[in-house]
């Protein structure tokens, strides 16, 4: 897609560890357009974070990354390291899970928000400070002009995450990467942050890649969603299609595993076992050993292709769930 802000195809990440190579991400394709939100959903170890880190050139050094990444139309992987760093700094903003570790405890929040502007936009110190106050105001920090000189420990968790968002937005990025940005926050604070990002996105037209394990958050923010399992996308498509008509047994099981409020206390639908280790992936469908549908020998030995079920809705399975959304 030509108008994609970020598009990855065939992205594969292999990490060398003491126990040998681990395939964290295997042949992942996705893209995100301006003003749109792509949600990457999966459990820990599914490769959702690693695929984004690798796409933006932030994978750990032990990782071997292959595949193509296009950022704003240019071949990002082909750029020399220095150009890549500058391009990332200028066009991509990051918000990570823990706002305390994303902020430097010995610098004032204003300094940290101003830094990117000085570095990438060539602002003077004074102009960058004014801009920092504007940004802090934009992300809803009350009396930003006074609090610009405060230090991270003087802020609550939610306010810190707002500061991190201000930092991420400092260069008016075309793309915002949000890696579990609300996981460490309380639910009422989470609602504030989700609303803030949605509002900023509408105003600034930023593309957002939101990494999360929380399907409820996905339902509220995403335009498209990609469900990952053991390094591969198992289901992908517009958010309504995926939630209303989940085609992969894993997606439907995840949707059913949440207690439905007000539904009373029957047993929850569970998925037996635990996700496989990236060192020791099953030969065929990685979900097969835990799958409630369980298919046949083909599932065990042959990797199912990602096939379209309706329009942009794709599912990686030999046995798509029925369209009436069985299992919900």
């Amino acid at each position, binding site marked *: 897609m030509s108008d994609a802000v970020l598009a990855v195809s065939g992205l594969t990440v292999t*990490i060398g*560890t*003491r*126990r040998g190579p*681990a395939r*964290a991400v295997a042949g992942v394709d996705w893209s995100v357009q301006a003003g749109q939100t792509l949600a990457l959903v999966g459990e*820990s*170890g*599914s*490769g*959702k*974070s*690693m695929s984004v880190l690798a796409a933006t050139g932030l994978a*750990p050094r032990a990782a071997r990354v292959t595949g193509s990444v296009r950022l704003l139309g240019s071949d990002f992987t082909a750029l020399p390291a220095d150009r890549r760093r500058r391009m990332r700094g200028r066009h991509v903003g990051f918000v990570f899970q823990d706002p305390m570790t994303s902020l430097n405890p010995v610098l004032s929040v204003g300094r940290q928000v101003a830094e990117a502007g000085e570095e990438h936009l060539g602002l003077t110190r004074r102009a960058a400070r004014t801009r920092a106050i504007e940004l802090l105001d934009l992300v809803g920090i009350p009396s930003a002009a006074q609090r610009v000189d405060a230090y991270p420990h003087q802020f609550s968790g939610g306010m810190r995450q707002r500061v991190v968002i201000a930092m991420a937005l400092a260069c008016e990025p075309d793309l915002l990467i949000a*890696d*579990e940005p609300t996981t460490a926050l309380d639910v009422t604070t989470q609602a504030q942050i989700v609303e803030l990002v949605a509002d900023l996105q509408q105003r600034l037209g930023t593309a957002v890649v939101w*990494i999360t394990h929380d399907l409820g958050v996905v339902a509220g923010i995403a335009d498209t969603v990609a469900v990952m399992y053991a390094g591969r996308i198992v289901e992908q498509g517009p958010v309504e299609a995926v939630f209303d008509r989940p085609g992969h047994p894993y997606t439907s099981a995840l949707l059913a595993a949440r207690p439905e409020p007000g539904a009373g206390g029957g047993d929850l639908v569970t998925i037996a076992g635990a996700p496989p*280790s*990236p*060192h020791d992936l099953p030969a065929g469908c990685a979900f097969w050993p835990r799958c409630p549908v369980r298919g046949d020998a083909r599932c065990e030995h042959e990797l199912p292709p990602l096939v379209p079920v309706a329009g942009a809705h794709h599912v990686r399975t030999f046995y798509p769930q029925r369209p009436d959304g069985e299992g919900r």
Partner: protein
Amino acid sequence: MSAPTVSPSEGQLRRAASALRHDPLALTGAAVLVLLVVVGVAGPWLAPSGINDVDVDRMLQAPSWAHPFGTDELGRDVLSRVMVAARVSLQVGAVSVGIALLAGVTLGLFAGYYRGWVDNLLMRCMDVLFAFPVLLLAVAIVAVLGPGLLTAMIAIGVVYTPIFARVTRAGVLSVREQVFVRAAVSIGASDLRIMRRHVLPNIAAPLIVQTSLSLAFAILSEAALSFLGLGVQPPAPAWGRMLYDGRGFVTDAWWLGVFPGAAIFCTVLAFNLVGDALRDVLDPRQLTVNEARRSTG
């Protein structure tokens, strides 16, 4: 309280062993230590001649095939004396570090676990001990108890107690905040049980490292005390004492000082090499594969 047992998990020891195997320096150090133990145990039988075989006909002979390390002013074989003295050094290392380990770990455990006034009292005492120059303190203790191998070992043990107390306390302070310690409290385990079963095994790694490093320093201290005439008494051989006796002959009989000195040097270096390697391997900050996987989300 019974003697604290330091037992890291099998997995960790296995990992340590395999890592050491791939580190040539540590391997060399370990080989030297093995040789030292063999010589220390079997020295009197392996030695080419008796350590007190005085022979005025062959006084101060330079190294030769018959006497590879030469002979001293009484015509005794230096190689034999260096070999037999290895036992003294090992004995001093083991006993004095044993004393320091037992006393230091116990004190550090109580100080770190109970905090408050217990901690203040014990650790201020340790600070006072720590403030004295090591050798001065040892000399003072020997002066009170009288010279000899046993007092030298006690003195060195006392001198190294504060180090173990501090290493232990630092470890206890971090481990006692762990949830599994709170979990042990929550099931009603006694303080002694928690200290022995949960805290101590989890601070074994830094203690093992400290032990190997302290062994080197203890041997060096014994050499210094013997050099000053406060350790092993003649005619029993000790490396420090031999160094002292050889100092008058530096110009005409260099071998009297060089070989015992080299023995001290090699032993200390070997302990340090192994200790450093152990520190790298047992470092609790090293991620396990599982944790590394979790952090890649």
